[in-house]
């Protein structure tokens, strides 16, 4: 293990050096600053580190000048702290008791890395950093301290960098807004969050400190100048939706986004879309539609009582919707008065229906009302009828009805005699799952599902191929010679990079044998 694993980081470093140096001129020609090239290098190296495919420490040896990183804290930072956590765990297995630190005037906390530590440094959650004067800073969210070449340049960025999460230092003593800049040459990035959070935190604009103070602690490039509004709204959309207990009324950015280790991460989105938009446009109507399933008269009565007074408006509604509808969502109905509704001509049917309604006995009228309402609802929702695909298998006369009739058996609605007959025909003629399906589109889906296995029976190794070639253990190389006799294969390879078991290896020559 020694020979290869010690070669690899050095080799990678040399490759990185080569590439970066040879691109330096090109970058300058493009008018880009050195900073960009160095950014690229940092990103590149940090990703290699993260992949843990290479011995990280060796990789980062020669990239830093100072081993200090400084946290600049606002002057009102509290002095009381929780008791220190256990000793910090640093990557590569080195345990460090504490960072030594110099405390300058209470506003700066400098942490120097102990010898042997190099950037980037991972600081897992729950770790407490201690300054020389005994002040403790607790890290609630795993952070990674990396080094950037420039100092305050990132202060001017107003936009959070995509995908870069921000972490807040928790102030155990107060919930006031905390922010501090990391000076001069370090950038803190959050790692994957602890499991209490369903999502990694989106870039969160740091909450405002006192507006007049210029000292802000922002832990990543999205450092905002004090007067700007936080950019919280967009990024922090997802987590609060999940964390229902934390969704609160939009508030001023006070006490926002303080990570606390006791509770799940509390995001306070300043402006959250309501997490429950109105369920359906019909709920806000004069009557409530209890879903689409009307199996008994009882729900009808409930809705009828509220809706019966609004018959005229209902009729008007019916006209408009019926005229739009191209067909019927045939709804299984136990209502025998459906003969009155003709579905071929909706425009004309409207008049028919209204007159019929007036002439009916009261009970029938009520039922019809409910059905009409329901029809209204469904029709508006389902103007488009699927006439092809699985619905296409039967004869033409039932085509028009099939799309709706098939899947909607359960639903109460208007059905003509023709529709009923058609359904019966359909049930008789096609046995492959069209009839008596439950639910809307499940009927359709069942048909497709049944047909697909038939077609895909020809394909033997369909599942093999994508899975087979999807592996993390990859060797990328060149071949000198590939030899086969009968089923014995011999490989003569060269100049390869291997990755297996999560680690990287290289070779100049490789010889292998395999039997097929």
């Amino acid at each position, binding site marked *: 293990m020694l*020979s*290869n694993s010690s*070669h690899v980081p050095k*080799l990678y470093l*040399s*490759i*990185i050096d*080569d*590439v970066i140096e*040879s*691109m330096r001129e*090109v*970058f300058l020609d*493009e008018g*880009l600053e050195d900073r*960009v090239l160095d*950014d*690229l290098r940092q*990103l*590149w190296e940090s*990703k*290699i580190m993260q*992949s843990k495919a290479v011995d990280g420490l060796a990789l980062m040896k020669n990239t830093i000048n100072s081993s200090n990183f400084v946290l600049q804290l606002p002057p009102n930072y509290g002095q009381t702290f929780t008791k220190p956590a256990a000793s910090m765990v640093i990557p590569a297995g080195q345990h460090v008791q504490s960072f030594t630190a110099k405390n300058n005037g209470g506003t700066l906390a400098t942490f120097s890395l102990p010898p042997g530590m190099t950037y980037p440094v991972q600081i897992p959650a729950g770790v407490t950093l201690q300054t020389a004067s005994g002040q403790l800073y607790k890290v609630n969210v795993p952070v990674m301290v990396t080094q950037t070449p420039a100092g305050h340049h990132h202060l001017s960025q107003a936009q959070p*960098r*995509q995908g870069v999460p921000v972490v807040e230092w928790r102030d155990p003593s107060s919930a006031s807004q905390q922010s501090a800049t990391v000076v001069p040459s370090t950038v803190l990035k959050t790692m994957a969050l602890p499991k209490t959070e369903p999502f990694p935190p989106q870039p969160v604009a740091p909450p405002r400190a006192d507006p007049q103070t210029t000292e802000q602690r922002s832990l990543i490039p999205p450092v905002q100048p004090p007067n700007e509004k936080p950019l919280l709204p967009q990024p922090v959309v997802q987590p609060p939706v999940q964390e229902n207990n934390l969704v609160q009324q939009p508030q001023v950015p006070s006490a926002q986004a303080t990570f606390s280790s006791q509770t799940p991460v509390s995001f306070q989105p300043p402006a959250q879309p309501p997490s429950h938009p109105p369920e359906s446009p019909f709920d806000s109507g004069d009557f409530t539609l209890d879903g689409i399933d009307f199996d008994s008269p009882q729900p009808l009565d409930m809705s009828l009582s509220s809706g019966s007074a609004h018959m005229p408006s209902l009729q008007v509604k019916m006209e408009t919707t019926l005229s739009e509808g191209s067909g019927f969502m045939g709804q299984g109905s136990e209502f025998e008065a459906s003969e009155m509704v003709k579905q071929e001509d909706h425009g004309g049917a409207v008049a028919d229906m209204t007159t019929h309604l007036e002439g009916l006995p009261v009970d029938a009228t009520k039922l019809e009302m409910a059905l009409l309402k329901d029809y209204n609802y469904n029709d508006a929702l389902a103007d488009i009828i699927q006439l092809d695909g699985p619905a296409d298998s039967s004869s033409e006369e039932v085509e028009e009805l099939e799309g709706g009739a098939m899947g909607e058996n359960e639903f109460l609605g208007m059905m003509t005699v023709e529709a009923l007959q058609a359904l019966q025909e359909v049930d008789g003629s096609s046995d492959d799952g069209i009839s008596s399906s439950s639910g809307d589109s499940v009927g359709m889906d069942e048909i497709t599902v049944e047909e697909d296995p038939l077609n895909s029976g020809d394909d033997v190794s369909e599942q093999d191929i994508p899975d*087979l*070639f999807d*592996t993390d*253990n*990859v*060797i*990328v*190389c*060149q*071949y*000198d010679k*590939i030899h086969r006799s009968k089923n014995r*294969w011999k*490989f003569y*390879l060269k*100049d*390869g*990079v*291997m*990755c*297996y*078991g999560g680690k*990287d*290896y*290289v*070779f*100049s*020559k*490789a*010889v*292998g*044998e*395999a*039997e*097929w």
Partner: protein
Amino acid sequence: MAYQLYRNTTLGNSLQESLDELIQTQQITPQLALQVLLQFDKAINTALANRVRNRVNFKGSLNTYRFCDNVWTFVLNDVEFREVTDLVKVDKVKIVACDGKKTAFETDVV
């Protein structure tokens, strides 16, 4: 021009990701990123040819083989990789190999 084969390695992928990030933040142009990748291809080809001097043996069973466009792709199972010092076993490994003969590649270059 060198093989772009090595872009799908840890080193190459991390470079591509970093370049993508810079492109997204509009710090570099895609054209420039492409230049970087081409430079990477050259650098890694040279480095592997000149700076690596070790030998590996392996043995396993061949699951699939494919030869297309002068590129061999194998999937091996239950492979043992043996270097001078140590031995590593893996269940499944994919080998992608381009033609190692010098002339083969260079003739393709227009």
